[in-house]
């Protein structure tokens, strides 16, 4: 093939251009740290990236949801723990009260304590978490029990998602735990004041045992749910780490590799410039007198 100066110079311009484009690409990758800038950089990789980002955000949200449910249930459990303590004290009182050797004064003192404990139970029933009432079912903005000890909540579950299509009920409705407890406490108090020891041993001891069992049942179910959710959170946390790793592997530039490519491109560019400078300088003209 016949070669002219123009062929050489145009080839050189083209090669320097593509060298520079390559350099620019590697510079971009290095300065952004990203391998994928545009969908066309790697359409398949970008699809994977989009799916992973979506998956990652889902995981993050489901973890946040589960953590919220766990803290809610832990607050519920703490209240129920308090309630358990009160129930134990009430049982002690009932055991004392069932004993007909106590003088009337002591019986009245016990009745006063029951009255106070009833108020305490009322407070427990109206515990809030993030300004929401724990035991009011879905009526989260109203105290579960009003001043006259009437239940104002409902039995509807509090639901949230901890996975696609996987819903968790994290509520313990007051009606389930407290039910008619306040009325029963009133009866208990009245029996103490009346010195009805027999009535106390016949009714209230059993009533308190039942209540205690109810609370324990609610707490063990809560504990099981908390455990399950925490395992979920842990599992999703691991997945999140894996996903982030994969996403980074897919999207981020491999710095060592890019630097190597960059260095290589720099050499090629330098070489192209150097040879160009030498070839373009000489023609026969340089050697004619």
């Amino acid at each position: 093939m016949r070669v002219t100066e123009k062929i050489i110079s145009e080839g050189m311009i083209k090669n320097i251009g593509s060298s520079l484009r390559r350099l620019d690409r590697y510079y971009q990758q290095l300065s952004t740290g990203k391998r994928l800038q545009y969908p066309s950089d790697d359409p398949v990789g970008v699809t994977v990236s989009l799916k992973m980002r979506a998956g990652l955000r889902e995981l993050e949200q489901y973890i946040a949801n589960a953590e919220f449910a766990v803290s809610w249930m832990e607050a519920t459990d703490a209240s129920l723990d308090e309630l358990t303590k009160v129930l134990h004290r009430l049982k002690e009182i009932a055991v004392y009260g069932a004993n007909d050797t106590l003088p009337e004064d002591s019986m009245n003192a016990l009745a006063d304590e029951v009255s106070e404990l009833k108020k305490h139970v009322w407070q427990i029933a109206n515990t809030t978490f993030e300004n929401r009432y724990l035991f009011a079912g879905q009526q989260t903005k109203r105290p579960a029990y009003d001043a006259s000890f009437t239940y104002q909540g409902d039995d509807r579950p509090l639901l949230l998602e901890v996975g696609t299509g996987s819903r968790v009920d994290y509520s313990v409705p007051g009606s389930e735990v407290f039910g008619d407890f306040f009325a029963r406490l009133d009866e208990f108090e009245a029996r103490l004041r009346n010195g009805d020891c027999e009535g106390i041993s016949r009714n209230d001891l059993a009533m308190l045992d039942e209540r205690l069992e109810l609370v324990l049942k609610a707490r063990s179910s809560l504990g099981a749910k908390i455990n399950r959710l925490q395992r979920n959170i842990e599992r999703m946390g691991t997945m999140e780490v894996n996903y982030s790793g994969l996403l980074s592997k897919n999207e981020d530039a491999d710095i060592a590799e890019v630097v190597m490519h960059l260095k290589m491109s720099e050499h090629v560019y330098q070489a192209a410039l150097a040879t160009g400078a030498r070839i373009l300088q000489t023609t026969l003209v340089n050697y004619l007198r």
Partner: protein
Amino acid sequence: MRSTFGGLEVGLRSLRAHQMALDITGHNIANADTPGYSRQVANLTATAPYTLPSLQRTTTAGQMGTGVEVARIQRMRDEFIDVQIRHESSAQGRWKARQSTLEQLEVILNEPSEEGIAAYLHKFWSALQELADRPDDPAIRQVLYETAVSFTELIRQTHSQLKTLQRDLDQQAQIIGERINSLAQQIAAVNEEIGKVISVGDDPNDLLDKREVLVRELAGLTNIEVQTDHMNRYIITISGSLLVSGDRANSLAFVENPDHNGLVDVVWAETGTVVDLRDGELKGLLEMRDLEVAYYLDALNAFASTLITEFNAVHLSGYGLSGSTGLNFFSGNDASNIRIDPAITIDLNNIAASIDLGGVGAPGNGENALALAGVIKTAFLMNNGTATLSDFYESIIVKLGVDAEKANTMLENKKALLHHLQKRQESVAGVSLDEEMVNMIKFQNSYNAASRLITAIDEMLETLITRTGIVGR
């Protein structure tokens, strides 16, 4: 028997021929860098010899040469390569338009990133999940509202950028069309000059080069077929319709098409029929305007309108914090006008996070919020019930990625091919300074030698005229 002064004539012819050859060399050197220039070569041939052989002529041998002349100034060019170059220029022009448009689409859609529609869609979903967790929390409602506002703004902004891109392509197509008209006229004018030169029997080498440059640019803009008439004038057609015929040029015109949002149709100015474009930059711009950008606009509109309809349907059935129901969340009907419904903007308690509980309000009920979140991620609403909104948007991005990657590769390929063809043409037509230098020395020496010949004959004649016959004086 030859003339006494015949040798002088031979010398003179040699002087003339070599002077001309040297001039041509000079012309080549001067145009070494002129785009489209083809090197010219002096075709030296021996002039017709004299005396036919005859019976009387027995004493001298053979035919006697009479010197040299430049028979033709030949333009060195492979016209077959020109045809290939024109063809590939058209293909390259089309891919250039595709590639640059797809590149702009990639910038507009801005994926993968934290600021694209995909990311905002997921943020919106997260905000709905948060609402389901705490349906009675005003702060969460505020967050959801702000997220939804930026989401809808982004959709509207993307839509308007796509529209602008479509308008830009329309404008560019008109500019390219005007350029085609101007080139057609210039080619017609050069055709006319070429015809004149041919008719007096000369080679219009430089005019041919000039015309080829124009035709090559034209080929990049549209598909053309080129034929020549008996005067070596080009007859150029676009898919069978005449653009240039000898010294006459037709022109393209642009008619706003009311059925096409006022975007223009490219028609023949004379007949008003639509130009059947098959390749070249103009075709690329028009198909990008009418197919690709239109596809992304349609897809974005489908995305937005499905979002509006389906999201509102779920929202309508739900209940707000203060018992409101039957309200829309989004207003508008496509990507151009999707907004948050004023009913929501006025009072964020109207965001229907709860389901129907028989008229009983329940602030802690977030089940409708979960249903709303489901509209975005789990309900198969797009592509005949096979894809979620989120899947659908991803598929748009994938298509863009594949198309843009293909366009990048194709453009690179076409460029490389064109470069190769140009290199081959340059190998035939290009000026090599080394060659020209050698020729220069050659022609100069020949010229000098011819002068020397004339001097020699002059001396011979001197001897003959002034010194011969002294004996008889």
